[in-house]
């Protein structure tokens, strides 16, 4: 039995846990405000909020309900546009959108309202997102966004005086959300949540990969949900090692204080990964195992020279170098009954330099044409270890073994980098597809490889020297 609160109503359902939350909302509950634009997480028309209770505090995140398994709603507060509406008046977010002419055909509009309400509900301390990040997963084909931007500026201004300690009450008082929100934590606590048990079903973390392709098939199943599995969650630091559970989401990385310190540009790197809604769902494990040659998280963690911990269902554990994990196109070292448990890496010190680059047709919410990351350790002015990875140029996320070997022991100068780039080209074999011709990918690989050095060593490596 799946139990949750949908807007103001307690739901108990025996529907398949693999059904999409969208279908449950629109078909079973006949709530038609949540729209269907794509069913692949790419338009945001189906956005709803998921409120998760943690020690009596509830925190809300936006997700795309078209690729969200119903089972993941278990124990949550799910909020659709209907649950945001005040009885009569437009709420404060809606008012700003209305005042600024930010709705035309209206089909995208509920999705925008919900995403923005998700932003409004976010505790400002943990909120590294700008208000426009909150709608990074919402496509509007009518307005050209300028009116929406005017509205979001206005909403941000309304939030300046938000009372962080009593934010739900403040938001209710200011007409952002209906008052039933204040009772939700208590009501969620009162529900006796049963753990869903369906070990035999398809393994789904948060489904952003699987549901794009197999939503129909999964909807007939009770799936094996591991996205909330506590043994797979958490970011820990010990003994110079950082360990991240496989079911950690991209948003959880982004919001982690320590990681932000370690990677000062983490925020700008991860903003290039999918959209806010998808980052709120997509997990590391899912990204590694979907094995896309341009998986952003694979590229990121390859360059960190990471170790994967893999659990067997009998409780045994093995560790392998992440570089060895991907073997061939969509082939990887994971046996029947095994799950990735975590990924860990040596915490960079002050002599370590790290950069991530990604270019796609559209800079946000798009799959890379080429992506790359690089970690360089410097000792006595020389590269002691280089770990570069490159995506979109081979059957797997590519660890540039030869290029890295070449760089080890070298000084950082223009000549060396140009030489290294030639070796890089010998290691890759891009093919032409919708994300670019192989020629373009080779050129882009070169440019982005150079970009790492221009970003990391601006004094030594200058754009003009590389291209003269």
């Amino acid at each position: 039995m799946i139990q949750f609160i949908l807007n103001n109503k307690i739901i108990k359902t025996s529907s398949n846990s693999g059904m999409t939350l969208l279908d449950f909302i629109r078909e079973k509950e006949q709530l038609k405000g949540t729209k269907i634009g794509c069913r692949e997480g790419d338009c945001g028309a189906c956005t709803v909020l998921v409120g998760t209770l943690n020690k009596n505090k509830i925190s809300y995140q936006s997700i795309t309900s078209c690729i969200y398994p119903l089972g993941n709603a278990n124990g949550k507060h799910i909020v659709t546009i209907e649950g945001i509406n005040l009885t009569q008046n437009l709420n404060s977010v809606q008012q700003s959108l209305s005042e600024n002419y930010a709705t035309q055909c209206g089909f995208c509009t509920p999705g925008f309202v919900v995403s923005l309400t998700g932003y409004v509900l976010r505790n400002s301390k943990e909120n590294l997102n700008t208000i426009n990040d909150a709608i990074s997963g919402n496509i509007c084909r009518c307005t050209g966004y300028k009116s929406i931007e005017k509205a979001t500026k206005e909403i941000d201004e309304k939030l300046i005086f938000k009372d962080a300690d009593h934010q739900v009450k403040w938001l209710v008082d200011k007409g952002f959300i209906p008052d039933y929100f204040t009772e939700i934590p208590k009501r969620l606590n009162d529900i006796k949540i049963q753990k869903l048990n369906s070990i035999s079903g398809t393994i789904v973390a948060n489904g952003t990969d699987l549901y794009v392709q197999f939503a129909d098939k999964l909807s007939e199943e009770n799936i094996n949900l591991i996205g909330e599995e506590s043994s797979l969650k958490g970011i820990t630091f010990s003994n110079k090692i950082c360990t991240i559970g496989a079911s950690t989401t991209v948003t959880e990385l982004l919001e982690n204080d320590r990681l932000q310190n370690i990677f000062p540009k983490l925020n700008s790197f991860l903003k290039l990964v999918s959209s806010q809604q998808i980052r709120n769902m997509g997990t590391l494990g899912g990204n590694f195992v979907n094995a896309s040659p341009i998986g952003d998280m694979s590229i990121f963690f390859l360059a960190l020279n990471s170790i994967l911990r893999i659990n067997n269902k009998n409780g045994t554990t093995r560790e392998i170098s992440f570089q060895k994990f991907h073997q061939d196109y969509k082939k990887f070292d994971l046996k029947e009954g095994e799950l990735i448990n975590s990924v860990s890496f040596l915490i960079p010190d002050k002599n370590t330099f790290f950069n991530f680059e990604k270019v796609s047709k559209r800079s946000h919410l798009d799959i890379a044409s080429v992506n790359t990351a690089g970690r360089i350790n410097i000792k006595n002015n020389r590269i002691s270890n280089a770990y570069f990875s490159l995506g979109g140029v081979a059957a797997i996320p590519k660890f540039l073994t030869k290029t890295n070997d070449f760089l080890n022991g070298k000084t950082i100068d223009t000549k060396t980098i140009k030489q290294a780039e030639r070796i890089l080209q010998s290691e890759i074999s891009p093919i032409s597809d919708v994300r670019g011709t192989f020629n373009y990918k080779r050129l882009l690989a070169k440019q982005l490889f150079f970009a790492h050095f221009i970003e990391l060593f601006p004094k030594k490596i200058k754009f003009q020297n590389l291209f003269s």
Partner: protein
Amino acid sequence: MKNIDSYGHLRGESLFVDDIITRHDTLFGLVFDSPKAHGKIISVDYTKAEAVKGVIKIFTHKDILGENQIGGIIQDEPLFAENEVHFWGQPIAFIVAESEFIAKKARALINIEIDELPIITTAKEAKEKGSFINPPRSFKSGNTQNSFAECDYVYEGETFSNGQEHLYLETQGSYAVPMENGNIKITSSTQGPTIVQKTVAKVLGVNMHKIEVDVIRLGGAFGGKEDQATAWAVMTALAVQQLKKPVKYILNRHDDLRMTGKRHPYESTFKIGLTKDLKIQAFEVEFLQNSGAAADLSPAIAERTLFHATNSYFIPNVMSTVYSCKTNLPPNTAFRGFGGPQGMFVIESAIAKAANEIGVNKRLIQEANLIAENDEFYYGQIATQVEAQKSWLATKEEFNLKRLEKEVKTFNKENLQFKKGISLMPIAFGISFTNTPMNHARALIHIYQDGSVGVSTGAVEMGQSVNTKMLQVAYNTLGISPLKVKLETTNTTRVANTSPTAASATADLNGKAVLQACNSLIERLKSVACKMLSVTESEIIFKEDQVFVNNKKSDLLWEEVVTQAMLERVALSENAHYATPVIHFDKTKEKGHPFAYHVYGTAITTVTVDCLRGIYEIDAVKITHDFGKSMNLGIDVGQVEGALAQGIGWMTMEEIVYGKNGQLLSNSLSSYKVPDIFSVANKVDIIPLETQGNDMAILKSKAVGEPPLMYGIGTYFAIQDAVAAFNPNYKPKFHSPFTPEKVLISLYEK
């Protein structure tokens, strides 16, 4: 006044086809379409699919009682393929089942055998092979050949502009319900309710009056639901005719992308001749329109391309030809601008090429050739109330072009990795259906006995806020509060024989009809009120829900006049018909006066290119736009911003890709990218140009739907400017969209 739908939109309460309450016995449809781009159908085996529990029936061409034909301009498009398939995604059968889920399962079990035939995917290839939709058309003025001989500069070149997916957020869909006596009611997401009605009647073999088409609103359309909403409505109606049960079909996004046509890709060649003073003397252009596998609206779109081949320039000698090339792509169709943008891209490219070769700034050529009052457009219309130069000058002054150009120059001198580019883009866009007989509309207005008012027109609301404008016309003319007026759905039983909501002309045509109807009603109510107050008609007006006598409020309320009119048996309903005067066009001579008026404007676009990564940002687009006397500036500005974003998308990231086998590869939202909030221009400034407006426009408020899309073309040339600033070896190419891939390759070409 805000969009009257915004309250419902923002609360998720506005209804779209997929949201309306369905009867509990509703069945669900799904198309089975061709998995090959061209071939003979050897066999289709439905047995396994039919055996799936919950499948009710699979419809094919054999089940059609009327004609298997949905072509509009030319009767060349079957609803269901019979013996041959001509594009990947061509409908072959319609599966009706108890749920969409079951229908999908059944679809996967259909076995088809196709004997493949050679395919054509590009217009050029089609032309070489003589594969055309209809004979080519040419417009001519002066004598280009003689003129070229006298020009100081003559250049030739070629251009390509790719197609564009409409990506209306709401996919295509229809819900058909059986009524009594074999009548069928269809709720469709269509821009053309009459087209749907007429085509359904033809395919079902029944009279049009048996078919009622109702349109609540569309979740975006942009031309994509003008002709191409029809097939799905026909299929649901066909199933209702035989099953006597309601049938619903909402296309899923992948099916919609695969099966529907898009903006036409064009391959074109041009020759441009100028004199030393940069006057364009002669222009020859040949457009190859990739029409796809059937005519759809291609001939009409081709025609508009010719009308806009000279954009807002006066060129004395012009020769233009367009070929509608038949290929094995889904039939391409209307898309905001309707062939106009494709035409303008070529003349802008020709000017860019000439500027580059001569070594002058492109804008000097643009500026030297802007059309002036009483010049003749090359298709014979004398240009009046021309705002081309005025908008150009206003743009230069208001936005301080000199300073902007200097900033770009300085920036480029100081920066190596980043380069800025700037361009100007003037537009002149003709308003009217170029097919003169389509320029008409009707409005039916009821004043109910409590004084409230219902307005029906032929206009379809699809986000452009046409209903808001109709409401404005109605309440202002009647002198009552907007709260008293309701806009009804667009329904063929209330307003019949309508033209589709298209060509930017809908607010003008329907608005004029609303105006006429309201005026007639007011005349009648005035005479009632006069008797009640014992005054003469010239002394009174209706305002603020009351009767004013000699501009002073009387005690007489609107409701009281309406009640009295009822007692006196005065008609409180009015049906008005409007047909645009003046316009005409002679296709035998290809000359005439096809447009009620033109819309003008000028945009400055500035961009910054990251020359390391080949990516770019659009810094700003600064526009002076000719709204006429805008009746709703908030809404009209929204139209400009939205159209601009679409134009920029078309020119930058929206890349349609077909495989060699004719299969759409950009077939999902993960592989076809439209602008998001981060990729539109960082700043968009829009200044309304001070003009008189035009009497042919509703309340002198000019049409605004399509023209601003073409400001987006400026982005292409601004990027080109930045690329040239980085790479002195760059040879300008005119091959849109200017994707990051093309930018990077251009930056480093040798």
